[in-house]
């Protein structure tokens, strides 16, 4: 018996050592600290210290739509604050909100603003004022198609709805031809491709169709594509990949990711607006905030039926979620500095060049800055 006990003790010690070694390795991977010091969570000086003195390891989680922009933001922020290590787990909006509300991450990215009951539960980890939504990632959604030799088409909302509902099945359908008199449309079957996963892009796309072509698109807006059957794939790269491989296919996807595919100009009022970051930002400015929330909560109710000149209302807003109060000083200072960097014109430009997002307007920026200033620490 003596021997057995000894043996199990040895193996237990071995496993402890192994776990410890693993943890060390992981910690080493997570740190971009050039001096090689282990980052200290508690080492942050008092609140008045300027950016550059913040240190520690912090994490966020959430929407995959923000992933490439977040990469640029983290890189930019860490170059200004070499003692900080930031990680972002693009686990999806829902998972991000859940982790954030459980206090697992310092901030979250989400394609949807917090729901009322989530705002309620946020008071548990965020202090009495709860959490706020900050619209820091605005991205236009393109209707992209693969038609040889055609790089742009005029598509009215009703036409798009009919295509994705399966009512229009050929590219030379009279409804498409009527809006594109100068284009030689091929006699080719349309293969609409949608996202098979629950996604913010689908949510915004169906919301747009429901608002602008309600007679055709009778389904309620949802992150899950409502029409049964049809081709689909997981993720933006998945749907864009299929459309690239299949002539006559059409999909909706983040505008920065459609590559060489043709894109549609959509009908806003009486004019045709092609997809562009500027037009997307214009559409957000033409919208109004959701009412009945905290004064610094900037959740937007996008006006999909706007007729504002040059606005492209088929747009996705992805929010950064933050608490209005952080009990941990270092964490609070980090979130304020990090979100401040994201909202700055430098941060927005970084996202625009990395992810093709639309930089927020100066007007919106000043609102966001006020909200960030309102975050209290300690």
């Amino acid at each position, binding site marked *: 018996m003596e021997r057995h006990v000894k*043996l199990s003790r040895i*193996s237990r010690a071995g496993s402890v050592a192994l776990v410890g070694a693993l943890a060390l390795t992981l910690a080493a991977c997570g740190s971009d600290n050039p001096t090689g010091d282990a980052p200290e969570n508690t080492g942050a000086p008092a609140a008045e210290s300027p950016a550059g003195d913040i240190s520690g390891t912090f994490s966020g989680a959430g929407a995959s739509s923000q992933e490439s922009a977040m990469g640029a933001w983290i890189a930019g922020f860490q170059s200004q604050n070499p003692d900080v290590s930031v990680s972002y787990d693009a686990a999806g*909006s829902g*998972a991000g909100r859940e982790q954030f509300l459980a206090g697992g991450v310092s901030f979250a990215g989400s394609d949807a603003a917090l729901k009322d009951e989530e705002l309620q539960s946020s008071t548990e980890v965020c202090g009495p004022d709860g959490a706020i939504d900050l619209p820091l990632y605005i991205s236009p959604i393109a209707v992209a198609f693969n038609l040889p030799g055609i790089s742009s088409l005029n598509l009215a909302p009703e036409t798009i709805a009919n295509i994705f509902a399966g009512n229009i099945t050929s590219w030379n359908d009279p409804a498409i031809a009527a809006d594109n008199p100068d284009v030689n449309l091929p006699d080719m079957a349309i293969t609409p491709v949608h996202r098979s996963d629950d996604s913010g892009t689908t949510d915004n796309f169906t919301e747009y169709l429901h608002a602008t072509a309600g007679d055709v698109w009778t389904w309620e807006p949802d992150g*899950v594509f409502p029409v049964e059957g*049809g081709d*689909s794939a*997981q993720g933006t790269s*998945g749907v864009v990949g299929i459309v690239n491989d*299949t002539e006559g296919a059409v999909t909706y996807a983040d505008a920065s990711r459609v590559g060489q595919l043709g894109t549609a100009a959509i009908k806003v009022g009486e004019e045709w607006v092609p997809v562009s970051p500027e037009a997307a930002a214009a559409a957000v400015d033409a919208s109004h905030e959701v009412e009945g929330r905290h004064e610094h909560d900037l959740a937007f109710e996008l006006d999909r039926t706007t007729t504002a000149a040059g606005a492209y209302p088929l747009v996705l807003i992805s929010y950064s979620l933050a608490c209005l109060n952080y009990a941990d000083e270092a964490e609070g200072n980090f979130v304020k500095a990090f979100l401040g960097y994201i909202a700055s014109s430098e941060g927005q430009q970084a996202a625009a060049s990395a992810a093709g997002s639309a930089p927020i307007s100066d007007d919106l920026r000043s609102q966001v800055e006020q909200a960030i200033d309102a975050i209290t620490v300690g």
Partner: protein
Amino acid sequence: MTTTASPPATTRRRRSGDTERGMSRVFRWISTAAAVLLLAVLAAVAVFLVQRGLPALTASGEELQTAGRLPRGMTHLGQLVGPLVFGTLLAAAIALLLATPVAVGIALFISHYAPRRLAAGIGYVVDLLAAIPSVVFGLWGGRTLAPVVADVWVWVAGVLNSIPGLEVRATATGRSLATASVVLAVMILPIITAVSREVFLQTPKLHEEAALALGATRWEVVRTAVLPFGRSGVISAAMLGLGRALGETMAVLMILSPGLLYSFQIFDSGQQQTIAAYIANQFPESSGLAVNVLIATGLALFVITMAVNMLARWIVARRKEFSGAN
């Protein structure tokens, strides 16, 4: 081996209680611990699935629709799990139908037809197939095979459509269950081949020589001696392959355009979905009860795979009785 060679020595050792000492005893405990660990892990997975799936099983239809994010128009879990189980079984069954004959052919070629050197080479290549990660199969199937095979499916659908009373649809993208099943078949080919080959090699030489002595051709030897002897082995090999096909996630996820229908339109998109791919697809945006719903579907997959494995076990066990050797 030494025990049979010198029985007196063992008895002496056993009497002095010395058979297990030093490394022997250590090794006994290591192997026991490994076996216990395996059972513990299995039990932990089962407990996790039941515990986390239970909220979804007991929730009301309304809760499942709102918090559980059941697909539109579904009010209880069965409406989701049913089509998923159907799709999973259909995909795996087609894969099995495609892979088993080919695998048996390869195995027979290696064991009875090919020159020894060639046989070793082919066996090596088949084993190599098993080493390719499923995500690579998924990429290949979704991006390379699907666009190519789409034309074949459209043609097949056209031919089948000429039969009166049959309506077969086919998608232009090739992202259908048929394509997914073909890739699954390639993925389970190595395991079925390897096991079948071993079984065929076990065929008693006496049986084969007896058949030859009666004037049988090579094919008749295979038919009268090798195949009957190896039948149950091939069946259990196919069951092992089926187990892999049932649980395969990545390849299906990347190839199939999913849908939740009880549909035999295997060339069309948006008809069927498998459990594993459904979970992987839905999990990133799920929270709360929706996760419990996914875990409950995982429980269904667990039960199916267990059933398949038990079936395979039963067949393997039965084999002992009529093993041709005696």
